[in-house]
């Protein structure tokens, strides 16, 4: 049996690799200790990773036995090592910049994620000329996809738990730090605006908790409805620490008695001396700007920058790695390509299936994430919800076993990475609005977005329509997945948000700018 003893010199900065291989014939190694060719490559990569982490630049004595006793061409191995070192460095860099996925920018700097025009043109030309062969592949892939099993909710929660928004409060604080330290600041308000599903409210609540800042005690629905302004008396005229209003929607009601609450709040804060930091949804912000021309009342405002595909990659990797030490790889169901970098989610353990495409190094962020970023408009919870919907299991997986495994928190990590299949973006079925819906639907959805959800009594109070009409509509929209009822609160579903936004645009209703 021929064994290759391989040594490498490498430079982790410019990825240059020098390789020496030497045949060893007389080495006695039991067959069962020798893995396949692909695993050998993993050994090389693991060793490279360890060497990088240790700050070494030399690897010696790698023992390899290629499949069919073929010697690995040095150039090929060199290329693999080069690509791996490069991706390793990218991962390290992206990990270092993790906190930067939360960015707050001035309105004119805000950008939506977009596919580059050149890429769109390329994909168009590719589609035109790709012809019959691709369709055959797709047909096969569709057959495979149809066999995939839905991942149990416990597994999905395990792989993509609800975001904890860590990193965002620090970024908010960093953004306003000069203003907080300024003894004669320009204006006493700072508003942070995010689209529906951005989590701005949670971020500001966390910030208040971390810094020990006062949070506004919110008025009840009846207070807002009945012109009871007593809740404003709790706001002190002066306080050294800022007042936090995590969600301005909490003091807003699109009712003839409701607007006065916002006016009085602004008036009170304006005449006081306490700094105030507010969170506001882009839908309410647009309404306040268009209907009440209140933009200038709030001095300065910042937009939460939408997530790019790269940001989404970091976001999903963080969610997955925080929850578990189990190694997992995410692969696209129709072509097997990696959706998230296996170096991160695989935690060094990549199963043999995952290495099939080893010689065509995946580029990250993946196409799936690029499409998701565009379709979700880079909104964290919209993207997160679609991501959860995309996670599937292979047909041979025992769903019950996995559910038990997930439930057992003391279970030791398995030796090989578990493969989670991700539906191709084109195959994801997102909720769509039922046909034949009219103005009332647009009104209802707009009100839900502007209030960030409404309880049933509020819907009936604010929308002056017949109760049975509204009940029928709520049921119909809930059935189609466009809206959901959580904790007695109706709100637009995150997955349904792209369809809702398109519908409101078609109906020429007020649109947010995010």
């Amino acid at each position, binding site marked *: 049996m021929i064994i290759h003893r391989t040594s490498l010199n490498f430079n982790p900065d410019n990825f240059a690799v020098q390789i020496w291989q030497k045949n060893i014939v007389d080495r006695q190694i039991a067959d069962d200790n020798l893995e396949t060719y692909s695993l050998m490559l993993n050994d090389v990569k693991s060793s490279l990773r360890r060497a990088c982490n240790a700050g070494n630049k030399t690897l010696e004595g790698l023992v390899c036995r290629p499949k069919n006793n073929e010697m690995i061409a040095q150039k090929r191995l060199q290329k693999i090592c080069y690509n791996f070192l490069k991706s390793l460095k990218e991962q390290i860099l992206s990990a270092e910049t993790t906190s930067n996925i939360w960015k707050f920018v001035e309105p004119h700097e805000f950008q939506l994620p977009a596919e580059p025009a050149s890429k769109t043109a390329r994909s168009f030309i590719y589609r035109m000329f790709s012809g019959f062969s691709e369709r055959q592949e797709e047909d096969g892939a569709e057959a495979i996809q149809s066999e995939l099993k839905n991942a149990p909710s416990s597994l999905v929660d395990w792989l993509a738990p609800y975001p904890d928004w860590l990193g965002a409060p620090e970024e908010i604080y960093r953004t306003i730090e000069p203003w907080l330290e300024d003894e004669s600041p320009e204006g006493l308000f700072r508003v942070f605006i995010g689209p529906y599903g951005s989590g701005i409210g949670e971020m500001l609540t966390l910030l208040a908790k971390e810094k020990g800042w006062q949070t506004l005690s919110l008025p009840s629905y009846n207070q807002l409805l009945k012109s009871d302004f007593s809740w404003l008396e709790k706001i002190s005229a002066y306080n050294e620490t800022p007042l936090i209003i995590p969600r301005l929607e909490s003091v807003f009601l699109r009712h003839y008695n409701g*607007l*006065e609450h916002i006016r009085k709040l602004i008036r009170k804060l304006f005449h006081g001396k306490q700094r105030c930091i507010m969170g506001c949804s882009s839908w309410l912000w647009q309404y306040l700007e268009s209907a009440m021309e209140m933009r200038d009342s709030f001095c300065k405002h910042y937009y939460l920058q939408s997530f790019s595909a790269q940001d989404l990659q970091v976001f999903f990797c963080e969610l997955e790695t925080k929850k578990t030490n189990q190694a997992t790889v995410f692969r696209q169901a129709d072509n097997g390509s990696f959706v998230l970098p296996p170096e991160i989610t695989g935690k060094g353990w990549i199963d043999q299936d995952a290495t099939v495409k080893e010689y065509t190094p995946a580029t990250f962020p993946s196409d799936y994430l690029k499409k998701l970023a565009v379709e979700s408009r880079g909104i964290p919870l919209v993207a997160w919800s679609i991501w959860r919907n995309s996670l599937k299991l292979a047909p041979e997986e025992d769903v019950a076993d996995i559910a038990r495994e997930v439930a057992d928190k003391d279970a030791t990590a398995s030796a090989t990475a578990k493969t989670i299949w991700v539906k191709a973006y084109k195959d994801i079925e997102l909720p769509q609005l039922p046909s034949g819906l009219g103005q009332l639907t*647009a009104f209802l959805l707009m009100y839900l977005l502007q209030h960030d959800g409404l309880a049933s009594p509020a819907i009936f109070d*604010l929308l002056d329509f017949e109760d049975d009409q509204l009940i029928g509509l709520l049921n119909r929209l809930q059935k189609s997945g466009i809206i959901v009822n959580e904790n007695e609160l109706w709100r637009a579903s995150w997955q349904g948000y792209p369809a809702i936004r398109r519908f409101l645009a078609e*109906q020429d209703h007020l649109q947010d700018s995010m």
Partner: protein
Amino acid sequence: MTPEIITSEQILRDLDQIPFFYIIILLTTALFLTSMVRRLIPALASALPPRFNYYLLPLIPIFRLLITAIAMLMLIPTIIRPTMQNFIAVFGAVGLAIGFAFKDFASSLIAGIIAVYEQPYRVGDRVSINGIYGEVKAINLRSLKLVTPDDNAVTIPHSCIWNGSIQNANDGSREQQCTTMFFLKPDHDAGMARQILRDVALVSPYTQFSKPVKISLREYPWGTQYRIRAYPVDGRDEFAFISDLTTRGKAALTEAGFKFASVPVVADTDN
């Protein structure tokens, strides 16, 4: 020199020369195309976002006029010998007959052609003609069809454009200003009432915010007239919008303790 006598045989083609089958096909095709235009364009408009209605629906009379004109141009030479004398004779006779017998009909037809190009009204416009207010549902060759707020269909000949005035509330666009009136007893806080009515307009789901919301007042001996001038998102919701503002406005004013003027008066709607 004796004038040339033109006989009917010389004007019309001989019966065996008239292609009856071709004429039937031509007329059927024209009718079919007209019918398709009447069905397809509204169907297309309803499939697209509402703002496209105002571009697509006015095309219906133009297409119908074109189809009719082309069909006539193709039909006439198949019946009449195509000479200059024949055309002059035929059109002269037709003109004479129309002049005496179908004067009003011809007047409406010509007015209809002018209306297509001048566009004092288009399909989808809300117009007031001879005191009748409604939405233009169809423009035919001779007349237009209005549907009033009471859901009555009214047919008005195009000749109304010769000597009547036509008030067009939206003039081909989607926006239409709507006015909602309230009458309050004179002794009240006008500033507060104004603010309440402004808020009423701002919270209505119908309100279009790209246009201003204005509240105007006028004092009368018996009370104060308030007018909310605002635009709905879709002008077709005019009456629903006014009803919504009226309902909310009455509730808001009552809740704030305002008293409505109860003297039976006729509102001066012209100012």
